[in-house]
């Protein structure tokens, strides 16, 4: 049986038995790629979908959903489960109300990369695991999956579920190469300060301050963000000041440091394709280097290395200039 059917059956089974009242999953869009997160109930499972175009991380929706009456079933891909745990750690979602079903993920696809291949009319996109079969302009072509991966799935951090009450896995998920995750960050580190500044200036000057990166971020769950708070003194919607742009992204990166699970949603949603996840990933690499390997959301824990103290902690002054 195909994974889509298994997932739908699981949703139907839980709803029919009354174990949950609602299901948080994805709904089919108008074309091959535009699936959206959606809430389903027993009476309405129309458009339910799970395929290679279900990139949105559903964890953050649980902040609001778990405040409502009743139980909810959520489908989480391996990387989404880390965000879930992190939100439980921060007491942002009510674990008791939620059933987590972990789903197989072979890496989600980026429709832009498919369109960039030059097709005019795309009729069908099928998942053939290692290859993606595209029917377009009256012909069928196979493209390697890795060439079409969403930016968040390139350098996947893990195919292990950090939490799951049940899992649905049909095909084996290959553990990603651990070394590749930080390869781009290492390249940035090798640049001179001037080169690196230029790189980020070039990227961040594209920012249109739409706040998509912040609003999608599962680590950004403040009920009133400092950038929206007129009393904070730094509230602002303007993108005029390049300094403000840089301040915005760097404050955000610092605020989520130690809590960012590296889900990559920030980079996936950026309309200007700014590789924001690299800023967060640099912090993750530094935490690993200085405090020992740490993965936010791997377990439900109250302390990440930045808010914990051990006698073996590195000395900040030794870090300066390192």
């Amino acid at each position: 049986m195909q994974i889509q059917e298994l997932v739908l059956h699981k949703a139907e089974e839980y709803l029919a038995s009354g174990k949950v009242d609602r299901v948080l999953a994805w709904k089919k869009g108008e074309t091959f790629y535009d699936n959206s997160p959606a809430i389903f109930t027993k009476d309405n499972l129309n458009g339910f979908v799970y395929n290679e175009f279900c990139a949105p991380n559903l964890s953050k929706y649980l902040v609001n959903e778990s405040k409502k009456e009743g139980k909810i079933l959520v489908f989480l891909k391996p990387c989404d489960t880390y965000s879930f745990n992190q939100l439980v750690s921060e007491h942002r979602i009510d674990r008791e109300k939620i059933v987590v079903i972990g789903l197989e993920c072979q890496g989600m696809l980026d429709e832009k990369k498919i369109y960039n291949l030059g097709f005019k009319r795309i009729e069908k996109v099928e998942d053939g695991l290692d290859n993606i079969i595209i029917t377009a302009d009256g012909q069928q072509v196979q493209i390697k999956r890795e060439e079409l991966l969403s930016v968040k799935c390139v350098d996947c951090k893990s195919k292990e579920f950090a939490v799951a009450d049940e899992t649905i896995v049909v095909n084996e998920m290959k553990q990603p190469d651990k070394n590749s995750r930080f390869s781009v960050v290492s390249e940035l580190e090798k640049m001179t300060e001037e080169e690196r500044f230029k790189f980020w200036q070039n990227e961040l000057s594209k920012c249109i301050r739409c706040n998509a990166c912040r609003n999608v971020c599962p680590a950004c769950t403040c009920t009133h963000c400092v950038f929206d708070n007129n009393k904070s003194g730094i509230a602002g919607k303007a993108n005029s000041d390049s300094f403000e742009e840089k301040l915005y992204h760097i404050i955000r990166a610092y605020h989520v440091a130690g809590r960012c699970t590296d889900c990559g949603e920030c980079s996936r949603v950026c309309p200007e394709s700014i590789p924001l996840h690299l800023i967060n990933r640099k912090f993750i690499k530094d935490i690993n280097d200085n405090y020992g390997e740490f993965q936010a959301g791997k377990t439900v824990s109250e302390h990440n290395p930045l808010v914990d103290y051990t006698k073996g902690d590195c000395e900040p002054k030794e870090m300066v200039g390192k």
Partner: protein
Amino acid sequence: MYKIKLSDLDKLYKAISEDYPLYLPIKKAGEVNYGLYGEDEEVSLTTLKTVKSPKDAFFPQSEDLVNFKVDGNKIEVIDVRKEEQPFVVMGVRACDFKAFDVLDRVFLVDPLDTFYQNKRNAAIVVTNACTEPEDSCFCKVFGIDASDPSGDITTFIIGENLFWRANTEKGNALTEKVKGLFTETDDKIVAEEQKAIREKINSLPNVNLDLTPFKDEMLDIFNSEKWGKLSEACLGCGACTFVCPTCQCFDIRELTKNDGTVSRFRCWDSCMYSDFTKTAGGQPRTTQMQRYRQRFMHKLVYYPENNEGVYSCVGCGRCVKSCPMHLNIVKVIKAFDKGGKDE
């Protein structure tokens, strides 16, 4: 009608930029947006959709309105408006050009927005026909012909050439200045290409969207239960509004600079934001459903009601491409289609 080889376009850009600041689609760090031409910039005239629309040319995302200097009891008011020098915006697509008309109906009526008006009057607009429209395009729904945009000058990129047709006095004046780079030609090739473009457009998936349901009783649309499901996944970010060529809402704020000057500026606002139109009295729209509904009611119901039936959507499809959760106006229009599924 004139033509110039695509390989000679650099000469054309250079020639125009000697007399005018030239804004056109420029590729930077992988994405194409309108920017000021410079010899080191990578121009990308063939890009169909820039991420942001060219509306910045007349209505910049952030713009100083007036400055103040406060000294004790004295307040000095500094008018920051300056005489706008003529400038050229090149590569404007038919949908984006139509969007200028949508903005004009807001900014060029009483009370006149002089900031907008000055830039609008100073601009020479060079449009570019869409030889390769995409699946996400639906300008035809709003009566726009992407094969024949107007503007002061219209260009067509066909094969190895760019064809150039002046439409107005301003267009003729600019043409005179750069004519030396062109060769004269008839419009036969262009007419053939236009026919081909119209055929391509007719085969796009969203060109037959039905807008008649939005002419129904306003309150019935407003109170429809459909808005709940439609807005369910909305993150409340401003991506759709900031890439939109017709969104015109702005906020006015003040910033005290280091030298004590107070700058009163305006910047784009988004009806998706939680503090949009927040006043001392509170928030007119407290839920994301209400905010989401507002955006589409404005585009498809309120604006046409106030503007002889002109919609404030031009079918550029930018929101279709940029929404993080793939919500967009096409889905809204389809949801209200009476032939469509009811959910």
